[in-house]
């Protein structure tokens, strides 16, 4: 268990004290409602702003990866409240607000033959379920909106309900190609749910609990005060983290798995008939899903709100969570700017023939690790060695079979 000196520190408890102060002011019958409403509003506000800055960060980061600048001249609106018109460009950081105004004022075109109720409900359902997944992420030592026993199961349940909304979007447009694309998107999402959940099972096996807060607390120790005991630094944890990363990319329809929403694939897939604010809602749901999955990855593998070294614990836990979350999102943006898109058959093959067997082997690996936790001294080296071998050898073997039968690509005209 981690040492608790900063537990009662002022910065750690500051958000809770603030909420309690506001709740005390209100009359007693509505205090429980106010308590939860303040939590919900705080999470929505923080992650709404996070979403806005993820979009501009993504555009600027992708631009720099591609040797160009991103948007850098959005600046302030002409009719700002300041008495003079400031001409500073703000380096383009107000771009998301400009995009929001654009999305809100665009004409909302609904096809005449569309199923109006479902067409309206689909973006609402997808955003609602994407937001619901934030309820069980521990943002700080005392900052978890709802602390339930089966938190991981809740997370995956809410995440899998978003797939229904994608089907609704594809079907309600009354567009053959939207429906086809929605079916393909569903096939992708269902294929990658299995590796996603299987990569998390070793964590549950080792910690013996489904509660996210307990999992974070279990990663709290440091060896020699310097090396954290995060699960990503164990062999099975590293393999699980890689599988989790790939599955999270696929679950949120993000490059290189963005076949459902690529422009050259059936226009925009299941989003073809959506415009204006409904499209912005789908976009928002995709980013919320990505942020929630990154948050879960941080919680399960990267130690959640734990600091990496013992002497860095004076920085509040929620700042560590945010830093790690930003790190993961930057990595996802980096991967987006680097890798090519996969075809639907390539990505389903990757899931079923590569990731699922590796994830199952990883569960066995974690079981071995858990059973040999009593080994010490030179046996620790044996333990690490066997664990690493169980990961590396199947990876190389299955990697060979994954690309078997395909000759290396030769390009006639490219150098």
């Amino acid at each position: 268990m981690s040492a608790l000196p900063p537990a009662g520190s002022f910065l750690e408890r500051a958000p809770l004290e603030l909420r309690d102060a506001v709740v005390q002011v209100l009359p007693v019958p509505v205090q429980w409602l106010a308590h939860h409403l303040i939590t919900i509003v705080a999470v929505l506000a923080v992650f709404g702003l996070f979403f806005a800055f993820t979009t501009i960060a993504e555009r600027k980061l992708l631009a720099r990866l591609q040797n160009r600048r991103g948007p850098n001249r959005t600046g302030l609106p002409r009719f700002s409240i300041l008495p003079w018109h400031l001409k500073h460009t703000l380096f383009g950081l107000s771009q998301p607000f400009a995009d929001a105004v654009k999305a809100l004022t665009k004409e909302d075109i609904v096809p005449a033959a569309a199923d109006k109720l479902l067409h309206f409900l689909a973006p609402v359902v997808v955003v609602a379920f994407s937001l619901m997944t934030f309820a069980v992420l521990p943002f700080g030592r005392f900052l978890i909106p709802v602390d339930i026993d089966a938190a991981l199961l809740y997370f995956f349940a809410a995440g899998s309900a978003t797939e229904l909304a994608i089907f609704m979007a594809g079907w309600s447009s009354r567009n053959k190609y939207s429906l086809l694309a929605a079916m393909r998107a569903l096939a992708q999402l269902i294929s990658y749910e299995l590796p996603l959940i299987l990569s998390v099972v070793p964590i549950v096996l080792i910690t013996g609990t489904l509660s996210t807060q307990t999992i974070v607390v279990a990663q709290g120790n440091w060896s020699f005060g310097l090396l954290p005991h995060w699960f990503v630094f164990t062999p099975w944890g590293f393999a699980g983290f890689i599988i989790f990363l790939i599955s999270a990319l696929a679950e949120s329809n993000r490059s290189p798995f963005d076949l459902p929403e690529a422009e050259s694939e059936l226009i925009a897939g299941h989003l073809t008939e959506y415009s204006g604010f409904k499209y912005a809602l789908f976009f928002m749901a995709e980013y919320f899903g990505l942020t929630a999955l990154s948050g879960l990855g941080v919680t399960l593998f990267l130690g959640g709100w734990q600091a990496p070294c013992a002497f860095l614990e004076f920085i509040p836990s929620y700042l560590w969570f945010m830093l790690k979350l930003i790190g993961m999102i930057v990595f996802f943006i980096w991967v987006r700017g680097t890798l090519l898109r996969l075809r639907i058959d390539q990505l389903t093959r990757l899931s079923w023939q590569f990731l699922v067997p590796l994830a199952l082997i990883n569960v066995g690996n974690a079981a071995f690790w858990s059973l040999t936790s009593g080994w010490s001294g030179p046996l620790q080296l044996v333990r690490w060695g066997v664990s690493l071998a169980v990961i590396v050898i199947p990876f190389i073997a299955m990697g060979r079979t994954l690309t078997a039968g395909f000759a290396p690509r030769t390009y006639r005209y490219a150098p």
Partner: protein
Amino acid sequence: MTVALIFIAVLMLGSAATAMVLRNLIHSALLLIASWAGVAAFYLWAGAEFVAFAQVLVYVGAISMVVLFAVLLTRQNLDDRQPAEPASRARALAAVLIGASVAGVITATVLSTSFKPSAAEAPNATVKQIGLDLMESHGATLLIVGVILTVALLGATVIAATDKKSDPEDAQ
């Protein structure tokens, strides 16, 4: 508490009943999924969190996909409204009679039972306890269910993979 139960019951039963009434097949399927979500809400009301989340994960997340895929892949035109007239008046009369008698039997049973609060304690329903119970006292059942699921999966794979000869350009 009772208000919540009434709300959940109205949601569940209302969506199931509307699913029977509507002509559009996809709308019926989606309302059926809504009633499954209502069942999950009921489990939450009753304090069984694990079962509620499992219900959402399995029913709303997976079985709904199966239902929708099956409907879409087997219907010719989806927005034709299913005809609402019954085959004959005799069949309609028989359906009404049977439905009324089933409802009567259930109502009579419910009204004649006295629902006393039990003196036993509610079981400890933490995830850890559920896991231990499954593995220890119901271990055999769990293994048999696992075997059945594996057989079903293998059978589905065999059925899906039988016509490999028809696609010669399939790599490996």
